[in-house]
């Protein structure tokens, strides 16, 4: 029997894994959403094509054209050496993806642990919260010199800076998540004879999870942002480095290809975090008609 799912918001769509992929795709295609999405993106590309390729309007004539960029991207023998069919393209993607994954995993693991501790212990919170609030507003770009001074080599400063951006966001959201849990669940747990550990694992962590996952999505965005910034300053490979390098060597088509790649990777990584969150928080789906 088919399960009816009422989503509380747009982002909740596709939560229940009990529904088969087929049904989900069919339902998606019946809704207006994918068509509007295609239309929105389509308008953007048409505008690009018209402004740059056709009309050469104002300073848009300086920009790489849509046709030239796409042709370069899918070329077997690209003019500037980077396309879907060159190893160089994937080397740069991998350099960046590797850094983001490393930094994201380190930052979110430690950030969740620290955030839970801050929510759990009043003393720890009093000790660390003002410090966090002082360090958090310092822009990542301002940390770059310090990271280069402190961390050896060229790779670790980039990972360190990417880490930092995600770290603060994760801590803050985890802390908010723990603090958002209604007191009544703690009372119930104590009445039911939960140990402090049981309260941690069965009340605090699952109760904070919705906020934690919002934090993880923001953290993922922050990772890409600071990755590109730090690659521009101190990198030797990677997408951020490549954007800057292609700008200097007037390879604008390649620059646009790299930018589009960053957009796609950001979208995919965000979607992956969201999917993981939905999987872990199936309890948030309201099932109206029983299976």
């Amino acid at each position: 029997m088919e399960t009816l799912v009422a989503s509380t918001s747009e982002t909740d769509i596709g939560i229940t894994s009990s529904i088969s992929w087929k049904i989900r795709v069919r339902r998606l295609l019946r809704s207006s959403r994918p068509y509007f999405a295609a239309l929105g993106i389509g308008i953007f590309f048409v505008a690009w094509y018209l402004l740059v390729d056709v009309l050469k309007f104002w300073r848009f004539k300086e920009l790489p054209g849509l046709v030239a960029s796409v042709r370069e991207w899918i070329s077997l023998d690209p003019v500037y050496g980077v396309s879907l069919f060159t190893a160089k393209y994937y080397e740069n993607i991998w350099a960046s993806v590797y850094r983001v994954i490393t930094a994201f995993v380190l930052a979110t693991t430690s950030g969740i642990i620290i955030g839970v501790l801050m929510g759990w212990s009043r003393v720890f919170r009093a000790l660390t919260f003002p410090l966090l609030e002082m360090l958090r507003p310092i822009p990542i770009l301002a940390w770059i010199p310090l990271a280069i001074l402190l961390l050896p080599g060229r790779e670790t400063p980039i990972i360190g800076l990417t880490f930092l951006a995600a770290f603060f966001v994760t801590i803050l959201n985890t802390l908010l998540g723990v603090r958002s849990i209604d007191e009544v669940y703690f009372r119930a747990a104590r009445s039911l004879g939960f140990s402090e550990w049981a309260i941690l694992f069965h009340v605090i962590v699952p109760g904070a999870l919705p906020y934690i996952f919002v934090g993880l999505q923001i953290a993922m965005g922050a990772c890409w942002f600071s990755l590109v910034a730090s690659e521009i300053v101190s990198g030797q490979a990677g997408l951020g480095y490549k954007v800057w390098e292609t700008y200097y060597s007037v390879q604008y088509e390649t620059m646009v290809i790299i930018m589009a790649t960053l957009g796609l990777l950001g979208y995919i990584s965000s979607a992956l975090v969201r999917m993981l969150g939905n999987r872990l928080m199936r309890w948030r789906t309201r099932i109206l008609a029983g299976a």
Partner: protein
Amino acid sequence: MQAVRGGAVSVRKAGKVYDPEGLNVVALEDVSFEITPGQFCVVVGPSGCGKTTLLNAIAGFDKLSGGKILIDDEVLARADKAPKPGADRMVVFQQGALFPWKTVLWNVICGPVQQGRLSQKEAITQARELLGRVGLSKIEEQYPGSLSGGMKRRVEIVRALMNDPKVLLLDEPFRALDALTKSVVQEFLLELYDITPKTIFFITHDIAEAIFLADRIVIMTTRPGRVLKTVTVNIPRPRDYRVLTSPRFLQIEQEVREYIDSEARKAFNAGERELAQ
């Protein structure tokens, strides 16, 4: 019907003052009454009369500032004693406290499992038996968020009973339910009470609900909360909705309403919105 084992609640000169340095709001003053083992005791009174304060003290969430509370001659709450909740006094909360991130079955078995009183397997067997007996076996794999309000209240009562408590404390548990659901859940509670009689401490605003459920009604005054009157409800059990229109019922209702109305009026005239809700 099972034999009642223990569960005598004794409230002796209980007092509670909030914010002792500042405003000195007296929530409870010299409150004394006894609940015999297995008795269904309902406390009624205007909002702000300290009903919930009293319940929190019995449950071990909050400290008393004077007097003491005993269960089976063991002191549970006293002014100089740190409050401590325990599985011998299970609470069913006004706003509901099923863990929304756990399935119904997990919620129901978590008490005895966490206390180490039953193994997971034993607890599941017992939970299925109890859920089956009250017609809730089909929902055990669902999350609370997918249940109706009335269903959630029933699961929460079952969760409390799984701990085999001496006393069941219910803080306006059916307040948020519509009238029809409410009567169904009330009958459900009475049914369970007839199967496993426990000492019950039940708080409500609703006079009809109080009489329908109670052996004894404790009427409290508006702030400072004191015991105004105790009324015995000698309507035989098992009871069903027909009781609601019986002459005996109406007579008790008349009596209770007289006491309550004067208190509600006082609260209203005091001009405190929270009191005359």
